[in-house]
């Protein structure tokens, strides 16, 4: 089918999938927790609790409950988080910005290192460098992030004292405004080099932890894409024409190989989202991941629900974009299921 039809079809399915995920999430809370647990806060008295039951129709059949829960969610009410001692919607964006900033820097590391390694290996297919790179890359994917983070923490924080934990120094944080929630950006916007550097310094260890894990995904893709490119006819032709290897590689092969590599963005985002949980715990990063880890252990249903919903929606969109790009490149995909 045409690319346009493909896009439309995927776009139509998307909301259905989101609804499906929301049903799964809703079912989880009904199975495990108390229906009212999502909205309850310790400060409520009996009449408020009754009002909640009324508003969300908690005494009626499940389907009705789901409807009112979904309505509440769409209007921004995701319940009350016991862990944060505040409504989920109030604290969500602050923590999201924290995780986002960490993910962006981790992605930068992953992309930089991943592309370098992928090219390095792709050029030397099946030689020992290729095998070594593969091991390094697969190592990144096999690393228990929580363990890797602890090791970095011991060496660079406890023993060497080069890097701090947490997201920022309290006094420096107080000294500037935070319009974007991205501390590096905020520092630049406020023209404060100390603030910028402070934010950057706090980012180093967690980004390395998280980024190294994601390297594997990108390396693997870049390598195989490059290998495939180098086997194309035009490469032979260019070489026959006498073009220097470097030019063939840099101007053509690498650039072409980048295109399919873009498709692993979906996987990388998924990896970063999940890896952030462990990284944020170890480095005391006040983001969504750590919030979720606390929520899971303390039975904070509202947070768990919101987090699962949010990451799934993000994941779906990322995959959608990636699939569309991929479909544009490879017509076979559109015809298939």
């Amino acid at each position, binding site marked *: 089918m045409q690319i346009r039809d493909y896009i439309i079809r995927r776009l139509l*399915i998307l909301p*259905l*999938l*989101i609804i*499906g*995920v929301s*049903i*799964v*999430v809703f079912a*989880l*809370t009904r*199975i*495990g*927790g108390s229906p009212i647990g999502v909205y309850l806060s310790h400060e409520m008295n009996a009449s408020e609790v009754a009002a909640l039951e009324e508003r969300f129709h908690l005494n009626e059949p499940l389907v009705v409950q789901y409807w009112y829960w979904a309505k509440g969610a769409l209007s921004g009410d995701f319940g009350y988080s016991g862990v944060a001692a505040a409504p989920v919607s109030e604290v969500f964006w602050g923590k999201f910005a924290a995780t986002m900033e960490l993910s962006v820097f981790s992605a930068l590391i992953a992309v930089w290192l991943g592309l370098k390694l992928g090219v390095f290996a792709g050029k030397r*297919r*099946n030689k*020992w460098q290729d*095998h070594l790179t*593969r*091991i390094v890359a*697969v*190592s990144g*994917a*096999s*690393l*228990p*992030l*929580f*363990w890797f983070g*602890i*090791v970095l*923490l*011991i060496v660079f924080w*406890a023993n060497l004292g080069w890097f701090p934990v947490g997201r920022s120094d309290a006094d420096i944080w107080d000294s500037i405004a935070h319009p974007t929630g991205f501390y590096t950006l905020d520092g630049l916007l406020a023209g404060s080099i100390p603030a910028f550097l402070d934010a950057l310094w706090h980012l180093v260890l967690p980004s390395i932890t998280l980024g190294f894990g994601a390297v594997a995904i990108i390396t*693997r893709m870049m390598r*195989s894409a490059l*290998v495939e490119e180098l086997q194309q006819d035009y490469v032979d032709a260019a070489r026959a024409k006498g073009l220097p290897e470097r030019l063939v590689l840099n101007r053509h092969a690498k650039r072409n190989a980048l295109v399919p590599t873009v498709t692993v963005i979906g996987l990388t985002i*998924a990896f970063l*989202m*999940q890896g952030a*949980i*462990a990284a944020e*715990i170890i480095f005391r990063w006040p983001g969504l991941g750590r919030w*979720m*880890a606390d*929520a*899971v*252990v303390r*039975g904070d249903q509202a947070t*768990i629900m919101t*987090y*699962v919903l949010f*990451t*799934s929606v993000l*994941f*779906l969109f990322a995959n959608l974009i990636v699939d569309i790009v991929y479909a544009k490149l490879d017509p076979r995909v559109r015809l298939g*299921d």
Partner: protein
Amino acid sequence: MAISDNAIPMSARQVRLRRWTEIFRSLMTNPTTALGMIIIFLLLAMAIFAPWLSTPNTPDAYQMPRDWGATRMPPGTPNHPLGTTNQGGDVLYGVIWGSRTSLQMSLIVVSVTVVIGVAIGSIAGIVGGWIDETLMRIVDIFLSIPELIFALAVAAILGPSFTNIILSLCIVFWVKYARIMRAQIILIRQADYVQAARVMGDSRLNIFLRDILPNASTPIAVQATLDMGNIVLVGATLSFIGLSESGIAEWGVLVSEGQAGIASGRWWASTFPGLMIFLWALAFNLVGDGLRDALDPRTEGR
């Protein structure tokens, strides 16, 4: 595969057997995959021979033995080559018996998820129609939720225990197999020889067993191998976050409990179990990768 003039036509089974032998050979010649195979072999040996390598604790071998008179000993102490934990547990014991725990976890989850996934995928593929649509939508929905996060949420709901972690992983990890199976069914169903067989009256079940299942076994084997590694990784993460039981010989729990020593320079209680998780996942990932490359028609023969 050259066919000489005198070649005896081989049965389908022989063809498949030769195929697998070739795959195995190509795996062993690839150095990274060979490395993975060796590590797996060692880990499996450790898990199977655990009771002989390290005397089981009584009454429950999966409880770390606690010796309050010998806590926090460094590696190299007599009787404790890898040191002891804060609770006087022998780290080597944890490493060895933890491999058993990991083997149990991964085998159970992979077996269950393959069976469930294959069953559901087969039903969807064979029966077709709205059952197919519904089941596949469910699969799509499950696949929309990142695995670790899904497992985390389910385990949180079920409550902290080792069994619940296994249960949670089973609930989350079956979907890929369903999708693979169904895709295989649809693919092969359209093949000429299968159409021919149907015309000749061959039953669906026969076709399924003879043609579809064996062909599906290859991508499923790849996924299962990767999952053997990934499951232990995810399970250990869940344990680390706090969804398992304390004091058991499980690598994730040991890393979590070993953290307390790190601040004071006692790195061994966390490092060795964590290293094991890494090696386990690494080995299965290497082999799984190799398997996938060997089986992927596009890269076959490279």
